């Protein structure tokens, strides 16, 4: 399920499987005010967000907030990498 960009396809947050972490590259297509709001919530290029679900709407965890996003809006958020997320309790202690 790990994916690193490169093949030129347009991959968005809406394409990231639920339960994965995804790295944002850009937001395009949404109205300017929406783009600014999304960034204000912390959806910035280079940041990782966790996708919780897509149905009925996309839910992503940004910083320590869950954000519900209409799937059309999630399609405006471009990502360049994603990988499965391991819940903290399941991670081996370092």
């Amino acid at each position: 399920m790990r994916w690193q960009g490169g093949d030129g396809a347009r991959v968005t947050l809406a394409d990231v499987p639920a339960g994965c972490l995804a790295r944002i590259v850009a937001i395009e297509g949404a109205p300017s005010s929406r783009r600014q709001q999304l960034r204000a919530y912390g959806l910035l290029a280079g940041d990782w967000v966790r996708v919780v679900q897509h149905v009925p709407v996309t839910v992503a965890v940004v910083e320590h907030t869950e954000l519900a996003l209409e799937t059309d809006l999630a399609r405006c958020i471009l990502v360049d990498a994603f990988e499965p997320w391991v819940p903290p309790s399941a991670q081996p202690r370092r």
Partner: protein
Amino acid sequence: MNCHGETEGVASAGGSIALVGNSNVGKSVVFHRLTGRYVNVSNYPGTTVEIARGSAPFLPESVVIDTPGLLMLPANSEDERITADLLLRDPFRAVVQVGDAKNLRRTLLLTLQLAEMELPLVLALNMMDEAEAHGLHLQTETLSQALGIPVIPTVAVQRRGIDRLEQAIAEARASRYRLTYPAEVEAELAPLAEGMPDSPISARALALLWLAGDQAAGDWLGQRMEASVLDGLAARRDRLAMALGESPADVIQRARWAAVNQIAEATIQETEATRSLGQRLGDLATHRVWGPAILGVVVFGLYEFVGVFGAQTLVRWMEAGLFGKVVNPWLTDWLTRWIPIPLVVDALVGPYGLWTMGLTYALALILPIVSTFFLAFGLMEDSGYLPRLAVLSHRLFRIMGLNGKAVLPMVLGLGCVTTATLTTRILETRRERLLAVLLLALAIPCSAQLGVVMGMLGAVSFQATLVWLAVVAAVLICVGWLAARLVPGERSSLMLELPPLRLPVAANVLVKTAARLEWYLKEVVPLFLLGSLLVFVLDQTGLLSRMARLTEPLVTGWLGLPAEASLAFLLGFLRRDFGATGLFALQSRGLLSASQTLVAMVTITLFIPCIAAVMMIARQHGWRTTAAIVAVVFPLAFLVGGLLRILLQATGWT
């Protein structure tokens, strides 16, 4: 939901202190801590949609102001604009930014904007308890030095850090934090700032707002500058956009984020934390399969508590027991003995009597229902479940030209349609607010009315309640669908923060329930009494039958109700639950059959809620829109009522 509560005048010789910050971070709890005045606190973004003032005992003659939440500037929805306008309009002795410690970066983005305004600023980092539970350790000292302002960690719900906050507010100084933007922006900023009119915020901050296209700032400048000067400013902004090759707002925001990330990096230490039960439950509550299942459990729980325990057990106990066996016989006996005038006795304890009909009805039948409802409602509000309903209901609201966020005003409307009308401010476009207000006015019964409906239909059958629910829901969706196609404009996309599920704070739920019960007792019960008195007087003077004859074609001919019901509908023009009082009187005299009760309840539910709600709609959307809404709602109510009657007759339902 406490339909009362305008801000009282408070002396402010000592200056005013504004509490600002992102939504749902605890501003209103801090306000309560600082002033002792309670304003509604709930666990969803958009609880406060109006400014509230309270005096601050720790700073004599000064005023603390609670504001609606603000994600950032430029403001986007109407409630955010209230806060933006406030900052431009009023000079503040100090601004306290309340921030959510576990979302430090987002908090700091706003801090930088406030700091640029050169207002005396204090940052209260609230919800430190949750930040710690998330494994975050924040160096508030480092943060304070980086920003040049006091940073106070607080846990407002536990009163932790409030004393230090009060002290910091008293000593607050203008922050001197200054961010340098890319050269092109700076080159425009300096001359722009030069030409800005005097304002409570710094000229530089005002110029930045202008460059970012802030509407509140634009309007503010528009009131103070000649159109030609403003055009010049707009030209400068356009020129900058050309030079940058993108919108200045984006460039400015990027520069701020760079600074925020730098500061955050130095202040946050994150360790691993296990996910709490609340977090896991929160995810399940919006899940495609578990979400509806949990909703089912919640609705079932509500039904058991309000519909069975409140509307049946408690009502039986109050109506048949306390009032029927003890209070009413005793009072009737006592009155007939001591007051020899039959008319007066009749007015009090006769069939249409003030006490037997009005108060018994308001206290024995409706009070238990609304009490259990208010309690359950307060628990729901505090739990953080309501915003998750927005996820589950999004697709339904899409049909009605709205997005899932509209579920918040709709659900609040079940408490009080008037306050819910105010809450439509959290919706982003005027069209969405209009659609939401129309649906609220038409098909969302408020708590008092829900009480009436449950009380009266409960006496008929559970099936009748279901039919009522189905008809009202169908009207809601059909009208919403149609209105969405008729009202021009776009739908905005759903973007809503889902706060963590929290264990409700007992004190908060109780205070809120008490305030709502007070509202019910003080404002609704007197109207019930007035209604009963009116029915009595009209009945005695024979006016009732004359009025009934006038409206007979509609009420008897079309709706198939007894002529006496016309009065109820006339009263319903004032308040729909008020009108139901009259219907209740008819039902208790055995004049309404089951199907007639159902038709009457559906019709009255679809009426305009109450005068207060109409005034609120007019305040927000103007009288023309209000008149249009009223002109749609009343005929529609009778149309649906009549059609339902025909349908019931056709299916042989009695």
